[in-house]
């Protein structure tokens, strides 16, 4: 049974991923803190759940979503698909010819960010810490919108060949300006949400899209232009999360003003 063998492979790989973390945790607990772990059995059970869960998750993605998603990214970027309706190849490909690629980039960015386990974890924690003020869904949708924007812009950049650092530096300027205006409580969480949005689900699909685009757009090299998508997907959630907080802050204040009148 090839599926069982594949499953075992993934389990071993996940185990190798978890092992250094477990070693650091238990090493420090036993050697430095020298105290028993509270609820040890529950914690161990939790680790087993995480291990098995992540293995199943990765194996399922490998079997169901990744092959199809990667194939799609390749097909959508091929000239045969782009000029299928127009018949003749116009010779010069403009950035507007890639409309379906942008739509795909936005949709796949949004939906993979919603499914990202690390983001779910941070959203749960933020919800607990803020005593419910930050909704799990609100945060995740804000981040997902940011990732969608980032991936779409990343695709646009590869098609047009504009330098990566212009976009990144402009994004930083927006982040800095927003930082001075956003509610103070949201700032650290917003910064964090950039890094968590790109993980197990997003990276492989987005990398496939980037490489497919860079390989098929004339004049781009997959080696030099294929990078940068992840960086975009990390930057834009910071902007949208702060924007979300600014928006809800502004609406709450307006409501309060209305009541006072």
């Amino acid at each position, binding site marked *: 049974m090839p599926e069982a063998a594949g499953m075992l492979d993934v389990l071993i*790989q996940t185990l190798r991923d978890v092992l250094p973390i477990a*070693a*650091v*945790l238990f090493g*420090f607990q036993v050697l*430095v*803190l020298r105290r028993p*772990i*509270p609820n040890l059995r*529950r*914690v161990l*059970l*939790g680790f*087993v*759940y*995480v*291990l098995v*869960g*992540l293995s*199943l998750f990765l*194996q*399922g*993605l490998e079997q*169901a*979503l990744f092959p*199809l*998603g990667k194939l*799609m990214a390749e097909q959508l970027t091929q000239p045969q698909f782009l000029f299928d309706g127009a018949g003749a190849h116009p010779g010069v490909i403009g950035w507007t010819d890639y409309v*379906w690629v942008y739509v795909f980039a936005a*949709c796949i960015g*949004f*939906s993979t960010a*919603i*499914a990202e386990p690390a983001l779910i974890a*941070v959203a749960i*924690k933020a919800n607990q*810490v*803020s005593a419910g003020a930050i909704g799990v869904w609100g945060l995740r949708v804000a981040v997902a919108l940011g990732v969608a924007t980032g991936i779409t812009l990343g695709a646009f950049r590869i098609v047009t060949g504009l330098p*990566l650092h212009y976009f*990144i530096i402009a994004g930083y300027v927006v982040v*800095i300006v927003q*930082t001075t205006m956003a509610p*103070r*409580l949201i*700032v*650290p969480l917003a*910064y*964090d949400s*950039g*890094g*968590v949005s*790109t993980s*197990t689900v997003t*990276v492989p699909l987005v990398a496939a899209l980037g490489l497919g685009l860079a390989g098929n757009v004339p004049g781009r090299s997959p080696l*030099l232009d294929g*990078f*940068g*998508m992840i*960086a975009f*997907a990390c930057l834009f959630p910071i902007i949208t999360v702060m924007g979300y907080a600014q928006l809800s802050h502004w609406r709450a204040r307006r409501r309060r003003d209305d009541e006072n009148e």
Partner: protein
Amino acid sequence: MNLQRHLLAFARTLGDSLRDLAPIFIVIGFFQLVVLRQPIPELEQILFGSLLVVLGLTLFIQGLELGLFPIGESMAHAFARKGSVTWLLLFAFALGFGTTIAEPALIAVANEAAEVAAEGGAIGADTAARASYAQGLRIAVALSVGFAIVLGVLRIIRGWPVHYLIIGGYAGVVVMTAFAPKEIVGIAYDSGGVTTSTITVPLVTALGVGLAMSIKGRNPMIDGFGLIAFASLTPMIFVMGYGMLLDA
């Protein structure tokens, strides 16, 4: 009674997982059937895989609440009670370095980067040169994440505002972009995003929040978050530095 509660929680998480994964199924289905107008190949295998994804996510989220969050927080409290900053910082470094060096996404990116460097003529084209380049890159990123967690923990202890450090880091990235070899810039920017894995994120978040809760005068919302942000910023700087070092 306990088992029943457990099963109930499991069923609820299962429902959540289904809802979380629905968008991705819809997007892939829509593009395959409507835009590309092709049948879905090997439907059975895909349905089985989707079942695994839903089950896996459910178990992972359950395990998060049972294992990863509690241990991250209880260790943070224990370190705060112990009062030894040195041990805490050592722990922070070990956690950052240890979780990153084995990260599969990083290994993949490092190998790709070695290929780019060989293509660009920055290093020799033989396998040994590429392997040592990739290895060096991985160590650079792992060191940078270790450093980031140490800096982040120090920030929580001292109560420094996060945005000064982040904006300072951005300035560092911008300045280094001007000097770093062109072919490493894209890889450096991407390496920030791939370093924080699905297991590291909940642990590091729990550590930060736990520390902020057990130190007097810290707000878990303002001071507890921000560790991941450092961990995705410093690799950019370290990787560009690594590129410059090799180039010089």
